[in-house]
């Protein structure tokens, strides 16, 4: 089936009109049709999360979605993070400071997934919740520790910058009832 259909997608704030085969995945569309190679594909079967991009602000697997399904919607890729002058954003800076990448293959997906987490949970430094958020992205190098530290550092900075007060959960009480 090589018949092409028109699709309009907003990517990183800019509208694109292209004709694509219906079978084209969003990942291939971003990489091959738009030349945005920052979105990485590894397993291409939904297991590794390296192809994560934000669709209307929420992380999804771009290898499991067809480009035509993104029609009329807005996509954010890793290319949206740095400023137009190449200046890194706060999360990217934190990743470099905390050595949160080695080969860097998982980094675009990690950054975007973390981006969403920090937008929805500003100031949340709880490692358990950060791990839960990035749980779907596999990193084969770092052991995740530094990635969690980098995300927590940005969350910490958010607290200071916006004087957010995060209620810390009360300490777990051991049950006294020995029924």
């Amino acid at each position, binding site marked *: 089936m090589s018949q092409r259909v028109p699709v309009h997608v907003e990517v990183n704030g800019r509208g694109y009109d292209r004709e694509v085969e*219906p079978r084209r995945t969003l990942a291939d569309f971003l990489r091959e049709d738009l030349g945005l190679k920052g979105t990485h594909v590894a397993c291409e079967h*939904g297991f590794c999360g390296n192809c994560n991009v934000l669709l209307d602000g929420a992380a999804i*697997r771009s290898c499991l*979605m067809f480009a035509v399904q993104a029609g009329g919607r807005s996509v954010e890729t890793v290319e949206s993070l740095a400023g137009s002058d190449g200046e890194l954003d706060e999360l990217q800076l934190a990743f470099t400071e905390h050595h949160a990448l080695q080969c860097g293959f998982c980094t675009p997906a990690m950054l975007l997934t973390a981006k969403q987490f920090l937008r929805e949970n500003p100031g949340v430094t709880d490692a358990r919740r950060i791990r839960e958020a990035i749980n*779907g992205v596999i990193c084969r190098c770092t052991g995740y520790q530094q990635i969690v530290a980098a995300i927590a550092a940005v969350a910490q900075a958010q607290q200071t910058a916006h004087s957010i007060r995060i209620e810390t959960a009360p300490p777990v009480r051991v049950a006294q009832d020995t029924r």
Partner: protein
Amino acid sequence: MLAGGQSLVQLLKFRRCRPSALVDINGIPGLDAIERRDGELHVGALVRQQALLDDPQVAESWPLLREAAGFVGYPETRRRGTLAGSLAFAAPWAELTAAAVALDAQLDICSAAGQRSLAAREFFRGPGETALGDGELIVAVRFPAPAPGTGAAFHEVSVRHRDYAQVAAAAQVSPDGHGELVLLCVAPTPHRVDVSEALTRDDAIADLLGRLDPLDDVEASASYRQRVAPVLARRALRDAAERAHRRAPA
């Protein structure tokens, strides 16, 4: 038929199915409702698995659904994957199939010929096999409300956190002591066990599960599953009973 695509697109890529056409149902209005209707929870075909975790009514009245959904995939896949799709795909490890059977869900199935309803307890026929005929689509899944104060728990064992379940147990217990237990991967379909006795007698679980014929595959051996199943069953029932106790109106 394409809804969330989290299983189907994988199959297409593996060339395990090669349909001549794919119909994307995402544009059909009205299929994305998750709401209480006549005391039941009505979940439209396009309701994403993540919605089961986010919806306050589910948390309040269908705790087992929420517990099970927490084990499904990752946030990124739950945001696309649907409940109905998970049931139609009928993977032996699919947590939501256990919840549907335990909660006695009804499936509304539609085709060009008309509409029919079928109980989840009759829907599953084997790994990846269901009662769904050619040209049929699940348009909604309906869950009757459990008794107020019902407690629920879901336990599973997998090689890696969030990987496919090797064995899973879904349980719910109502304040008056009525229990439901469904196990995954110990039979070709979600396996419902009569637990009326198990709630009062501690050793009953192993007896009840003794006649299992677990799957034997690359994820786990049959003998491993045979040994793990009673452990998970007991934990799930214990937690569900405890939660029912705590939720029970004073």
